[in-house]
């Protein structure tokens, strides 16, 4: 099979148009109204780039390419259609890992091309090839581990073992040393390169394993920017501008997004990546948490019956709902929307308070609630909703824990001290729907549960919400 070839200049011009479409597309993503159109624009740019590449004169064999696109496209389409909205983070991780793997292979094949031709690799080409392969490989295996953790295939807990950090550091230094040797060597040496690639893949695993499941969103965001940078590196080795521009756009935006997520949790990125947050919490816990738990030991929590909770909600003037990851796990978002509609029909003012790190991805909770047809105008972020708790009759916390823990405000010894929280404790009454007294991701006690205003509604979130709906209807 063969296609008519385009001139190199025409291909470049088309790449330029594609790059512009990507930039405008991302720009349009900044408003809910134009976001879908932005994504469509970017996909049109992608289609253009793929079609002109197919017509590029460098390409002589089409069979492999067309078969590959067909197979990959089919896998991607089926996965994207089938995935549940709650599983979105791990889906994004898998797609991201695919891109990283592709970048690593492209760089490696570039290296092999030099070896086959028996040519020395110029230092610049050498550096960009090694960078593309290293970053791409880390993103590939790291994303797979992140997927495994979120999907429950690998333990969600941070996995730690003795000498973990020294071993990781040693491996990384080893990779750098081999890279340095390869650059200095000049003439290609596929065997040493294979060792380098293998070590890079291993490093991706060891890098993500010690990070707890709740921090996976930050990791995925970081790996997303890694794949972007790996793509940009392949652009340097292939001298392809559309690869450099798009890869860098994603690299820069992913880095910024990672930073914003860490800031929302008030934890520096180094703490997320190397702090093994949530590893020891169950066993020993930091001193502050232990002391806090001891202080709470004498107090008891107060249960509330479905009927009482329903009455409080139905006769309130204003209810603020605080959804957390537990709601997503229980798939309770549709029920919550139904409950909210019911309350609204009774004249109750209902608002949703969304913590920046609610769910397993920034903005994940918004997606889940949008899926349940909650209008986005009812969703309020932390700064907008916190002043309103004072005037709320009931704060209904569903499957959230750490994001409403007042220890973040009061207890300087707490591991979450300083994290911005939703001021649920300022509402007149707090109803907390929770499966058990088990601590949240941070592994610490929540003094809010022991607050005299607080009432616990134990049970599965979906189940409790369904019962609440029945009880409100019966009133």
């Amino acid at each position, binding site marked *: 099979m063969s296609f008519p070839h385009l001139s190199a200049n025409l291909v470049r011009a088309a790449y330029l148009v594609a790059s512009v479409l990507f930039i405008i597309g991302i720009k349009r993503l900044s*408003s809910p109204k134009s976001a879908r159109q932005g994504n469509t624009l970017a996909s049109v740019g992608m289609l253009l780039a793929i079609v002109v590449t197919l017509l590029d004169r460098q390409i002589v064999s089409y069979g492999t390419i067309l078969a*590959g*696109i067909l197979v990959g496209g089919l896998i991607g389409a089926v996965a994207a259609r089938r995935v549940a909205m709650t599983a979105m983070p791990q889906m994004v991780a898998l797609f991201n890992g695919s891109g990283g793997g592709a970048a690593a292979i492209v760089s490696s094949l570039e290296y092999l*091309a030099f070896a086959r031709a028996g040519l020395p690799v110029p230092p610049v080409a050498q550096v960009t090839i090694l960078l593309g392969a290293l970053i791409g490989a880390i993103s590939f295996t790291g994303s797979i581990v992140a997927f495994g953790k979120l999907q429950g295939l690998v333990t969600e807990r941070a996995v730690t073992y003795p000498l973990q950090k020294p071993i990781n550091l040693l491996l990384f230094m080893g990779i750098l040393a081999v890279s340095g040797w390869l650059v200095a060597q000049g003439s290609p040496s596929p065997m040493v390169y294979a060792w380098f690639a293998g070590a890079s893949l291993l490093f991706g695993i060891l890098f993500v394993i010690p990070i707890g499941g709740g921090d996976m969103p930050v990791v995925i965001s970081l790996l997303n920017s890694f794949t972007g940078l790996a793509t940009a590196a392949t652009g340097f080795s292939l001298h392809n501008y559309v690869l450099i521009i798009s890869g860098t756009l994603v690299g820069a935006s992913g880095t910024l997004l990672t930073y914003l997520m860490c800031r929302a949790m008030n934890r520096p990125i180094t703490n997320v990546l190397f702090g093994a947050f949530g590893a020891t919490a169950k066993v020993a816990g930091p001193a502050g948490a232990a002391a806090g738990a001891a202080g709470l030991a004498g107090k008891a929590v107060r249960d509330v019956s479905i009927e009482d909770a329903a009455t409080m909600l139905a006769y309130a003037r204003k209810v603020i709902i605080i959804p957390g990851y537990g709601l997503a796990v229980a798939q309770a978002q549709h029920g919550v929307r139904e409950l909210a509609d019911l309350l609204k029909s009774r004249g109750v003012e209902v608002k949703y308070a969304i913590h920046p790190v609610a769910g397993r*991805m920034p903005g994940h909770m*918004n997606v889940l609630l949008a899926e349940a047809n909650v209008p986005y105008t009812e969703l309020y972020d932390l700064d907008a909703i916190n002043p309103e708790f004072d005037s709320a009759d009931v704060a209904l916390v569903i499957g959230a824990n750490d994001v409403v823990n007042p220890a973040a405000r009061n207890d300087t010894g707490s591991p979450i001290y300083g994290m911005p929280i939703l001021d649920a404790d300022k509402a007149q009454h707090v109803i907390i729907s929770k499966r058990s007294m088990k601590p949240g991701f941070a592994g610490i006690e929540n003094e809010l549960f022991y607050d005299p205003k607080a009432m616990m509604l134990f049970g599965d979130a979906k189940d409790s919400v369904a019962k609440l709906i029945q009880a409100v209807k019966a009133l």
Partner: protein
Amino acid sequence: MLEQLLTDLTIFILAIFVGYEIISKVPVILHTPLMSGTNAIHGIVLVGAMLVAGTPEGPFVTALGFLAVVLGAINVVGGFLVTDRMLQMFAGKPRDTRGS
């Protein structure tokens, strides 16, 4: 060689600034679709995969090239479709599936 590197670097540095600028104004509620959308855009590595897979020399290179194209295509197609699925729900026009 050096001239080429400088051109590449110029584009790289300018793209960093553009990437930073266009992202810094995205509201939190769209962060997940944004992550997913930019994730699809780095699927452009598929173009690189096509370029190396289109000039095969031997079965080993062909196999690796094929794998790279498959992975790149998964990234592109899956990324854009899943983002579209999410954004469809933000469209502002709620489907009328509300309960009684």
